[in-house]
C-alpha cells in the first residue's frame, strides 16, 4: 500500500468510525469503490475496532510498579556493604544474589526481599524477629544467617552461600533406593531437630529449600522465614474471589492444619518432611502416587506416620524421627543378600581360576593352555567387577546405579564367556578326570545361573527394578 493509500485509509476510517456498523460499511464501500485495496483495509479495521473490547484500554503503566519493582540488580551493583556478583534465583520472597560482603571479604547469598512483603512496619518487625531467631541456628545442616540489613528502604538477608544442587534437582534423576533415602532422611531430620529443639519451625520445607553441597552434605535454607511470605486468611479469601492471587507458600508440602491457617508447630515440618522424603524415595508426590509406590522397611513406616492427617498422630518433632530411623538396621536384609550374592559369585570365579590352573597341569595340549589363559582373564574380570560393585555400594552409594549401568553389559558378557569356557574345559578333560569335569560343569552352570537369574532378582529386591 502506498503512503497515499495509507492516508486515505486513515481518513476514511476516521470518518466512518462514528457511524453505525452497517451504515459505516455501506458508506465506505461507496466512498472507496475505486480502490478495493483501500476499501477492504478500512472495512477490516472497522471490524477490528468493533471487536477490540478492552484491548489496550487500561494503561499498562498502572501495573508498572509491579513490573519494575522486581527489577534485578546487575553485576557489580553496590547494595549497602555488598557487591552483587550474580543472581542465583528468585522466589515469592524476592531475589537471591551471590554477593560479596566488603566488610569481611566473604561471599554471601543475599536475599533482597520483595518490596511488597516489607511495606508494612509490623511485618518488618516480624521479619527482624524471625531473622534474629534464624541467626541463632548454627547446625551444620542449616544454612547460617549472617545479617539482616536495611538498605535504602529495602530489606536484605545475608546468609551462608551454599554451593550445590537442590533436592529438587537431585530428585530429577528419579527415585532413590531405600538405603540412600534413609541416609538422606536421617540427615534432614537431624538438621530439623536442632531447630525444633530451639522452638523454631521452618514452615516451608520443600525440595527447593534443601541443598546438597558438593561434598554430599545436606543444608536446609530459609529457616523461619516462610511466615513472612505467608498470605493472611483475608488475603487468601480475596485472592480466591478475584482469581488473581497466587498462593505464596507451597501448598503441595503444607500440612492440612497449615492450609487451614491454623497455628502450626514442629509437626507441620514433620508433615512436610514426610512429603519430601516420600517424593525422594519414590520419585513421585504422595498425592499423585498409586499403591505401587510404597517405601519398604523402616523409612516407609516413618514417612507414613509423618503424613498422618491429624498432627497428634505424627511424630512430635524431628528428633523423634531421628530416633525412629536410628532403630532401623543400617542396611535392610535385601541389601545384605545382594552383597552376599555378589561375593558368592566372586568366590565361584576364584574356584574357576584354580580349576583352570589344575586343568592345564593335567593335560599339556596347546588348547588347554589357551583355555587356561582365557578363563584366568575372564575370572579376574568377573571377580573384579563384582568387587567394584560391592565397593561402590558400601562406599559411594549414590554412584551405584550409574556404575552398574556402565558395567552391566560387560559383566554379562564375561559371565557367559567364562561359563562357556568352563563347559569346554569340562568336555576336554571328561575322558581323563571325570570328577573335575563335573566340577567344571557345575561351576559353568553356577556362574551362568547366578548372572541370568539370581542377579536381576537380588538387585531388584535391594534397589528396585533395573533402570
Amino acid at each position, binding site marked *: 500500500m502506498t503512503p497515499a493509500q495509507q492516508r486515505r485509509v486513515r481518513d476514511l476510517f476516521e470518518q466512518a468510525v462514528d457511524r453505525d456498523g452497517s451504515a459505516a460499511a455501506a458508506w465506505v464501500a461507496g466512498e472507496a469503490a475505486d480502490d478495493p485495496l483501500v476499501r477492504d483495509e478500512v472495512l477490516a479495521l472497522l471490524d*477490528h475496532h468493533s471487536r477490540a473490547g478492552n484491548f489496550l484500554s487500561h494503561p499498562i503503566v498502572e501495573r*508498572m510498579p509491579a513490573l519494575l519493582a522486581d527489577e534485578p540488580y546487575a553485576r557489580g551493583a553496590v547494595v549497602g556493604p555488598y557487591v552483587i556478583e550474580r543472581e542465583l534465583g528468585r522466589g515469592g520472597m524476592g531475589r537471591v544474589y551471590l554477593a560479596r560482603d566488603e566488610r569481611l571479604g566473604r561471599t554471601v547469598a543475599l536475599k533482597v526481599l520483595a518490596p511488597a512483603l516489607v511495606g508494612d512496619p509490623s511485618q518488618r518487625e516480624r521479619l527482624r524477629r524471625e531473622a534474629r531467631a534464624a541467626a541463632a541456628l548454627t547446625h551444620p545442616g542449616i544454612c547460617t544467617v549472617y545479617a539482616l540489613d536495611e538498605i535504602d528502604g529495602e530489606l536484605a538477608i545475608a546468609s551462608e552461600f551454599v554451593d550445590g544442587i537442590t533436592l529438587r534437582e537431585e530428585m530429577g534423576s528419579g527415585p532413590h533406593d531405600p538405603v540412600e533415602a534413609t541416609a538422606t532422611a536421617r540427615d534432614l531430620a537431624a538438621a530439623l531437630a536442632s531447630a525444633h529443639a530451639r522452638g523454631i519451625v521452618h514452615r516451608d520445607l520443600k525440595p527447593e529449600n534443601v541443598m546438597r553441597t558438593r561434598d554430599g552434605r545436606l543444608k536446609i535454607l530459609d529457616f523461619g522465614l516462610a511466615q513472612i511470605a505467608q498470605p493472611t486468611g483475608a488475603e487468601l479469601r480475596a485472592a480466591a474471589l478475584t482469581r488473581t492471587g497466587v498462593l505464596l507458600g507451597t501448598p503441595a508440602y503444607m500440612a492440612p492444619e497449615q492450609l487451614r491457617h491454623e497455628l502450626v508447630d514442629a509437626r507441620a515440618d514433620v508433615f512436610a518432611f514426610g512429603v519430601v522424603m516420600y517424593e525422594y524415595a519414590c520419585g513421585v508426590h504422595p498425592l499423585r502416587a498409586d499403591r505401587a509406590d510404597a517405601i519398604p522397611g523402616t523409612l516407609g513406616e516413618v514417612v507414613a506416620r509423618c503424613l498422618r492427617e491429624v498432627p497428634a498422630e505424627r511424630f512430635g518433632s524431628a528428633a523423634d524421627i531421628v530416633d525412629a530411623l536410628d532403630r532401623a538396621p543400617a542396611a535392610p536384609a535385601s541389601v545384605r543378600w545382594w552383597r552376599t550374592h555378589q561375593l558368592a559369585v566372586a568366590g565361584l570365579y576364584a574356584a574357576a581360576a584354580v580349576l583352570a590352573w589344575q586343568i592345564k597341569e593335567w593335560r599339556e595340549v596347546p588348547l588347554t593352555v589357551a583355555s587356561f589363559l582365557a578363563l584366568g582373564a575372564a575370572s579376574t574380570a568377573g571377580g573384579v567387577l563384582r568387587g567394584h560393585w560391592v565397593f561402590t555400594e558400601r562406599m559411594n552409594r549414590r554412584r551405584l546405579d550409574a556404575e552398574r549401568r556402565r558395567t552391566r553389559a560387560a559383566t554379562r558378557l564375561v559371565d557367559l564367556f567364562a561359563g562357556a569356557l568352563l563347559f569346554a574345559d569340562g568336555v576336554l578333560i571328561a575322558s581323563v578326570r571325570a570328577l573335575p569335569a563335573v566340577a567344571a560343569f557345575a561351576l559353568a552352570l553356577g556362574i551362568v545361573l547366578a548372572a541370568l537369574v539370581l542377579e536381576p532378582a537380588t538387585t531388584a529386591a535391594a534397589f528396585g527394578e533395573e533402570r
Partner: protein
Amino acid sequence: MADVPSRLDADALAPLVYHELRRLAAAYMKRERPGQTLQATALVHEAYLRLADAGAPWHDKRHFVGIAARSMRQILVERARARGAQKRWAALDRVTLTDALAVAAQEEAMLPALDEAMERLEQVDAELARIVDLRFFAGLSIEETADAMRLSPATVKRRWALARAWLHRELGGDA
C-alpha cells in the same frame, strides 16, 4: 512536530528516565495500600519534576512526556521479555478479551509482540504509534495526549481508535 522525540533522543535519555521511574515505582510499592492504585500520569509527572532540574536536554514537559512514554515502552518490554513473556504469548483470543482481569494478565505476556507490532505501525504511521505510547504506555488521557501532540481531542480519539484496531489485528485478534 518538535515535541515528538526522535528515536535517538529516546535512546539516549531512556536510561535516565528508566532509573528515575524504577526508583519511583519501588518507592511507590513500599507505601502501597490495599485499594489504592497508581496514577500513571502522576508517576510521569513526578519523574518530570525530579528530572527537570537536572539540566536534561528536553525543551518542555511535552517533550519529556514523549520521551518518557517511549522509554516506558522500552522498559516494560525489556522487563516482560526478561520474565519470559514471549514464550507464553500465542495470540489474543476473544474469550479472554471480554474478561478485564484476564486482559490485564495477558497484556504483560503480549508486550514483546506488541512492541514488534508498534515498530511496524511506526513505519506505516508514526503518529499513531506516538498516540499508543502516550495513551497505553504513559497512561495519558485523551485530553493530555491531545495537548502533548498539539492535536484536537476529537482527532486523538479517532486516531486512537484506528491505532487500537490496527494493533488488534496485528496481534491476531481475529483468532
